[in-house]
Each structure stands twice: as structure tokens, then as C-alpha cells.
């Protein structure tokens, strides 16, 4: 369970990204956070695994106070939290399987990890993860030779190899074409349903969010303006979230 308790975040340059946010996310939920660029979506996601620090308030994940974590405690907590980025953040110049294996490194014997030696069970787990996202046959190809969608799947497999209970995804489909974006989103949906992993995803595109998520949180200028089921979202609600009528840019499939 994730609990935001009156969380505020102000960046050193004075930008107030989040203002007094409180919300609760139950295990197994698939939550999409939508809003304009600069609304505070990314900040909200990054606070959960302490990539950035809160200015005020508290975040609790399974009774752990996230702002207090540091050093070894923080690393142990992060083992259970997967992170997927807009720019994939793969290790180029090395094979797909090595990218997935990198997620096993923290649990390994430090001496073996220094020399890049992986056990049979680690390798099997990496291959299983690649199989779950359907790109097993690319395992021994260099990561930078794959297409954008394939790279994002490798990133997803890397996250699965961590065996997480929660996956955070920061604009995972924003740099992909509509068809690939749909495939990646359905990967998320499948992982959420079969592995029972909580998923917290940032989206810019309303239609994809409404199609795949079970709950939508709308953010506008650092404040939550909507929080509820996907089916209850109306045109008016979208107008409050975006502060204006939706444009073509906010929707990936123009015909909708």
C-alpha cells in the first residue's frame, strides 16, 4: 500500500511541483496519472522510490517511511520497486540479456558481480523475464540495435527480473509510435493481472490511460483534481485536468 500524506515538493529553483498531495494506492491497482507537461506527474512518481526528496509531508509504502530511508535500507526497498523510463535507459554497447541481468546485480555476490559472472539461476530468471514480454529471441543481440518498442520491452523485462511488487513507469510510451505504445501498455496490463504487481504509470495520452488503467489520477498545477475509476471520467473532468479542451496532441489515436 502506498500512502501520500500531505506531500509537497518545491525544487531548488522555486518551482512548486506538488502542493499538499494526499492519496492511497492499494496493492494490485493499475493507476494512471494524467495531466499536462509540468503538472507534477514525474515528480509524484520519482518521490515513490526516493529519486528525489519530499519538501514536506510523508510517503508510506507498506509501513516504511520513504523520506527517512537511506543507504542500505533504501537499496533494499528499491529492490522491490521497478522503474521504467521514457528514454528506456538501457546499457548500450552490450547484449539484451546483460541488460536484464544488470537488475540481478544488487542481490549477487559482490566479488562475482565485479567480474560480471552470473549464476545459472540468474540467467534463467533473465530469460524468463524476456519471455514474459515476448522478446526472448533477441536475448543475445546488442541492445542499441533494437527498435524503440523492443528497447522498452527490454527495460520492462529488466524490471521484472528484479521481482518487484510495484512498478513505476515515467512516460513509458511517450517516445513510441501509437501501435507500439498500445503493445507496451497491454504488456503492463498483462503483468498487472498475471503477476499481481501494482503499477503506477505517468501518461500524457488520455485515451491510452482510459483504455488500460483501472484508476485515473488527474493532476493540474501540482494538485489532484480527479481521482477515481476509469469509467467515471467524463469530458468535463478531462477539461478540469487539462485546463482546456483536449487537442489532438493529448490523444494518440486521432479517430477516437
Amino acid at each position, binding site marked *: 500500500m502506498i500512502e501520500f500524506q500531505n506531500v509537497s515538493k518545491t525544487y531548488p529553483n522555486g518551482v512548486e511541483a506538488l502542493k499538499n498531495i494526499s492519496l492511497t494506492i492499494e496493492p494490485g491497482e493499475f493507476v494512471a496519472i494524467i495531466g499536462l507537461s509540468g503538472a507534477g506527474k514525474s515528480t509524484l512518481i520519482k518521490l515513490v522510490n526516493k529519486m528525489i526528496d519530499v519538501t514536506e509531508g510523508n510517503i508510506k509504502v507498506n509501513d516504511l517511511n520513504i523520506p527517512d530511508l537511506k543507504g542500505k535500507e533504501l537499496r533494499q526497498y528499491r529492490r522491490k520497486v521497478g522503474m521504467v523510463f521514457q528514454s528506456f535507459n538501457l546499457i548500450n554497447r552490450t547484449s539484451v540479456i546483460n541488460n536484464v541481468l544488470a*537488475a540481478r546485480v544488487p542481490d549477487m555476490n559482490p566479488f562475482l558481480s565485479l567480474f560480471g559472472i552470473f549464476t545459472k539461476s540468474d540467467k534463467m530468471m533473465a530469460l524468463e523475464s524476456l519471455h514474459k514480454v515476448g522478446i526472448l529471441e533477441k536475448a543475445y543481440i546488442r541492445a542499441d540495435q533494437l527498435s524503440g518498442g523492443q528497447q522498452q520491452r527490454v527495460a520492462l523485462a529488466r524490471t521484472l527480473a528484479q521481482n518487484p511488487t510495484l512498478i513505476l513507469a515515467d512516460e513509458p510510451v511517450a517516445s513510441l509510435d501509437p501501435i507500439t505504445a498500445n503493445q507496451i501498455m497491454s504488456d503492463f496490463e498483462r503483468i498487472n493481472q498475471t503477476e499481481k504487481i501494482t503499477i503506477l504509470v505517468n501518461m500524457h495520452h488520455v485515451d491510452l490511460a482510459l483504455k488500460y488503467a483501472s484508476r485515473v489520477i488527474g493532476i493540474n498545477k501540482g494538485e489532484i483534481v480527479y481521482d477515481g475509476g476509469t469509467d467515471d471520467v467524463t469530458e468535463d473532468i478531462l477539461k478540469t485536468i487539462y485546463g482546456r479542451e483536449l487537442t489532438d496532441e493529448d490523444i494518440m489515436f486521432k479517430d477516437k
Partner: protein
Amino acid sequence: MKTLCSKISNFIKDLIKRNQRYRTSELSDGTNITRPFSYAIVIFSLVLIVFIYFWNMIITDFFNRFGFSFFVSRVPNFFTIIQKMVVQVNWSYFSNVVSPLVDTIQISIIGTLVGSLLALPVAILASQNIMGKSYIPGITKFFLSIIRTFPTLVYALIFSFIFGYGTFIGVLATVIFTFSIVTKMLYEIIEAIDMGAFIAIEATGATKLQAFRAAVMPQIIGRYYSIILYNFEINLRASAILGFVNAGGIGIIMNDQMALQKYGNVAVIVLALLIVVIIVQNLSQYLRRRLS
């Protein structure tokens, strides 16, 4: 004096105004856009002034004092030595060259490998992007620049005062020199890498060292090998000088034979070193191309 000052300041003001007009473009509807002032031209002018000043100090000064004809008359002396080397070449001396040459290669290999291995952890400490908000990179860089101040020869000289003479001195000097160059080249590469992968692996709960090993090493390993090979080349060539302070290797006999003016023997030494350097150069060029 006052009028001169005001004249100069007026001149500079006028220059700035002209420059600003030059940087401004007026569009068809009357809007103005000004390109920001670039200091490149100022820096370039300063470098040019310094260059001309030093040129006058050294080159012009030399010709003023000794005359151009002196310079021309002395140039052929260089070729006299070369000529002696060619005419008096003493092939039988080659048997004396083999053992010091092997020493030289050994010094270079051990020195390069040890120096480069020591360089990797220190280069990590010196990289701001890996260490994050910390004073360690700044302090490390400061110490590295002190180490880099001295050339190999000075280290060899210092060590020969402490430990006497021999190949061990050569190895020590080569280790320190290689270390100082490789750390610098390496941290510059590390600071220029794509940080995305590093951040992603840190987010899986890895320590900085683990994330470096998993996400940064694959990005830099090829260039690291290439730096090591390049330093091996440099060290081989430097070995000729190392011998001048009795730090072992081929430089010792080269120094002796030069002092004895046995240019026929020097020719054989130079040729042997040249052949080794050319072989290593080609080999490392081939390897570096394969690696990158």
C-alpha cells in the same frame, strides 16, 4: 592623460555599440533579434597577441643575436651525425642490444598494466557524475594534476636518488606516469557517458559501484583498452629517455654509446627501437580498430 583615457573609453564604447548593431538582425515586420555576445573572438585575439609576443621573445631574439646565416650554417651538423650513423653502422653490436631491448619491453608492459589498473578506481573517484554531490572528485582531480605536473624523467630521477638504479626504477616511473595520464583520459570519458543506464540500475537498489560495473563499464571498456594500448606506445618511446637516468632498458646503452661518440652502435640501437615501436604501433592500431 585624462583626454587619452576618455579617448580610449570612447573608442571602446563605440566598438561595443558597432558590435551590437552587427549582432542585431531586423526582420521584415520591424522586430529586432540580437545574437548574444560571444567571447570566442576576445579569447582568440588574446591568444594571438600572446603568440606574437612570445614569437618575438624567442624566435626573433635568436636570429637577432646570432644572425640567420649562423642558423643555416649549423643545420648540416645534424646530418653529419646521421651520416656517421649510416656510414659507421656496426651490425655486430646487435647482440648487445637484445637484452636491454627486452628489459625495455618488460618495463613498458608491467608499467602500463599496473598503472592502468590503478587508474580505474581513482578515475571513478574523480568523476563528478558518478560520485554525485561530493567533494571527493574535486580533491582527487587536484591531486592528480599535481602528479601530472612531473614528467616521467623527473620521477625516474627521484626514484634513482631513493632506490639506486635499475629496471625497477623504470617500472616505478612508468607506473606513475601511466597512472597520471590514464586517470585523466578515463575520467573525462566517464564524465561524458550517457547517465540514463546508471540511474536505471541505481533505481533497482544497486550501490554506486555495482551500477558503475553494470551500466558504465560496458560503455567505456573499449575506450579503456584503447587508452591502455596508446599508453604502451608512449611508454616504449619514453624508455629511451628513462635510460639517461639509469632507470634501465635500452636508454642506458644509448646514452653510453652517444657519450662515447660510437654513432655506428647508436644507429643499431635506434633501428632496433624503431622496429619495435613500429610493430607495436601497427598492432595496437589494429586492435584499437577491432575494439571500437
